[in-house]
């Protein structure tokens, strides 16, 4: 186990990660670990200026400046990491990587499957370099099976794992997820993989390879639907299904996203039980809420279209936020469909949590990023340093960690190794 002087109070400061991840599905995993103090050393190709990660140097930008170090998404996904450059097409570059692997607890990557083997750093080689190493590869389909060479990005993972299909309304094509839910979530599973493997190593001394497949991780997220098929032979692909804004498991009604006053304003309402329905009725106070046929769940489910139309006619005339507040005060789960500005700038719950920390990025300056939705009472996360500029920590990693002299580092730079 490696140590970093002066940082032993952090939860994971004893963990060093040799990190090849990028985009969000990989970078999101090591970001989490870095926020808890793991020393994450991100390795990038100096020849391509790290552009394997398509987010490096792309929008959004804080101002009119453009450049490989100025991408806002890249900064968001790589806070608190160290960044080095290393050309693995050179013998010296490969030799330096070998030295880095020997002092790392974990190697992480989300290349297409097979790329690490082609670079000469597949599982067998990593294990030779460090017998208790933990190697977590995260690819679209994993390292085995007929699709192992197929390529994915978030929306393709979501399509194949069933998540796109289940996000839709009747008589419409799938709406899907309007962002890479499975890049966030694949990153979470990748972080879990690292952490569980570290826990196992702490008990047994054994490292291992974790062959993560993002589509498998995604396919575990519709469990009840799969059991409804394997046990009851009822498919989700059937007329009227899916109806994503409704809720059958558990059944609730009314349950949906209703129009509110104004342009593209919407309101989510969920009546969990008859008590919620009664409370809703006292707020809405229209004849339909007192109708006997709607008094119990079975009656409301039997006429759900009619119920939704009646409720929508009421919500349509009202302000989304104020109506949600009135319903919540009456005990009914409700929320306006929050726009980014509303939840980031005006939700006391996110600000009180410290959810949007400001980091200092060497080139960008001060900029806010996504924080973490957890707090640990003794050893909490911190986000202060922005993502590394290309090769920003070469001197620290090659010098302080691997013991190279400044002249040697200069020579590596001149030779195009770093």
């Amino acid at each position, binding site marked *: 186990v490696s140590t970093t002087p002066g940082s032993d109070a952090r939860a994971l400061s004893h963990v060093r990660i040799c990190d090849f991840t990028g985009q969000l599905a990989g970078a999101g995993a090591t970001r989490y670990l870095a926020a808890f103090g793991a020393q994450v050393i991100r390795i990038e190709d100096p020849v391509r200026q790290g552009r394997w990660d398509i987010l490096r140097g792309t929008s959004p930008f804080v101002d009119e400046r453009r450049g490989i170090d100025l991408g806002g*998404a890249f900064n968001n996904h790589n806070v608190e990491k160290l960044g080095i450059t290393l050309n693995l097409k050179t013998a010296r570059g490969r030799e330096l990587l070998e030295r880095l692997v020997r002092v790392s607890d974990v190697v992480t990557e989300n290349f297409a499957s097979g790329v690490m083997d082609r670079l000469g750093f597949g599982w067998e080689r990593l294990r030779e370099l460090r017998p208790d190493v933990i190697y977590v590869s995260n690819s679209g389909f994993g390292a085995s099976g007929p699709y192992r060479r197929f390529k994915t990005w978030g*929306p393709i993972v979501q399509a194949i794992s069933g998540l796109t299909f289940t996000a839709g309304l009747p008589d419409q094509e*799938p709406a899907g997820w309007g962002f890479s839910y499975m890049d966030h979530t694949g990153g979470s599973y990748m972080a879990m993989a690292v952490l569980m493997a570290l826990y196992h190593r702490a008990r047994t001394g054994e490292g291992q390879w974790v062959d993560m497949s993002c*589509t498998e991780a995604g396919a575990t997220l519709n469990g009840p639907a*799969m059991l409804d098929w394997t046990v009851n032979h009822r498919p989700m*692909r059937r007329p009227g299904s899916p109806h994503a804004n409704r809720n059958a498991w558990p059944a609730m009604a009314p349950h949906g996203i209703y129009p509110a006053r104004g342009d593209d304003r919407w309101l989510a309402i969920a009546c969990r039980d008859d008590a919620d329905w009664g409370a809703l009725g006292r707020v809405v106070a229209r004849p339909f809420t007192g109708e006997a046929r709607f008094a119990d769940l079975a009656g409301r489910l039997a006429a759900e279209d009619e119920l939704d139309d009646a409720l929508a006619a009421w919500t349509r005339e009202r302000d989304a936020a104020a109506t949600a507040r009135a319903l919540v005060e009456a005990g009914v789960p409700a929320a306006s469909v929050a726009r980014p500005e509303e939840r980031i700038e005006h939700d006391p719950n996110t600000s009180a*949590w410290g959810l949007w920390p400001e980091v200092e990025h060497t080139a960008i300056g001060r900029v806010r*990023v996504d924080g973490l*939705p957890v707090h640990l009472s003794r*050893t909490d996360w911190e986000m202060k340093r922005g993502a590394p500029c290309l090769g920003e920590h070469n001197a620290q990693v090659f010098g302080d960690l691997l013991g190279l002299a400044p002249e040697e580092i200069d020579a590596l730079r001149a030779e195009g190794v770093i």
Partner: protein
Amino acid sequence: MSGPLDGLRVLELAHERTAFAGKLLADAGADVVLVEPPAGAAQRTHAPFVDDRPDPERSLSFWHYNTSKRGITLDLAAPRGASLAGDLIARADVVLEGETPGRLAALGLDAEALLARHARLVWVSVTPFGRSAPRAAEPATDLTLLAGGGPVWSCGYDDHTLPPVRGGGNQGLHTGAHHAVMALLIALLERERSGRGQLVDVNVHAACNVTTEMASYEWLVARATVQRQTGRHATVMRTSSSQTRCADGRHVNTGVPPRRPEEFGRLHRWVRDLGLEAEYPEAFLLEMGMRREHIDLTQIGQDPEVTAIFGAGRDAIVLIASKLPAVEFFREAQTRGLPVGVIYAPEEVLDDPHFVARGFPVEVEHEDLGRSVTYPGTPIRFLGSPMRIARRAPRLGEHNVEVYAELGLGARDLATLRGEGVV
């Protein structure tokens, strides 16, 4: 081989917010004891049911979320309930609970007090808005958390007269569960060195807020607002469609259209192989794509030639898709090096040969039904210490005898507790 969390002892107080986290830990080898009230956890009333017959032992939702756990009953509000829970907590590494803040403390199970008494304990609390939030007491469901927390704003259709869409399957609750698992594992690794546990406060609303990809950072960085679009990322500037209908009526995600010369070459060859040249007079644009440098996406809409070539690639993919069934289109495109994805319904994943070849669908024994049932397998493939579904979800109180025996309670004690309605 045992799982990566073999030997870890978790006490889970049954709740829909903790169930998935508990399953992930249990499938990873932890000994997760699920504590239900004597009448059964609320999740046992959740559809779907085996043969659509509502019954606490037939809920497929409960089955899915509680694999590999042991199950006991205990009424925390009964006179001896809290003290028995205290004895169980004393033997646990982790307490996992999703109660509304304040409820457990009122029953005499105050997290801070128990953490002070048990120095190594990790207490994980999963609540809608966090334990000490301004909104801690507000009611919330998966739908309202995803709507108020941000993801819903980005999901839906080009047609904004249709409502935004909440993706199905309780993904807001899942997202909270993922963060609970990551954070508690971090606390356990820290405990390896310090010998001390701590409180882990998981906020599902916050978890949704930081699971929106561009929606948050477009605002944080550039004060720009993304807008939802059918089947693709919500963006600040509108993008063209990336979802199309195949010959069998099913949809595919067409991915990012070709940008590199070799991709235009593959697409051109596919048009020819299918004999579609006559229907596709723009094939010459693909040839132009093959002869030029890689397309710079920022030039689309700026440079007419780049725009035409890029559009031709997209049109060729849509044309080919319209000629083939969705699964065939997906496999053939990927085999030819064009990344696209078939849009499967959940049940279709289980029959796909790739998932079958990797052993993703697994058989779980249900002696109560006299047969095994096919479940989705585990999300992470550890080659040294595999995750696996060790057994079906527990029946109500199934492990009362063995778990209470670990506290030194015998059959007679248990009968008394049962008589008093405690278990």
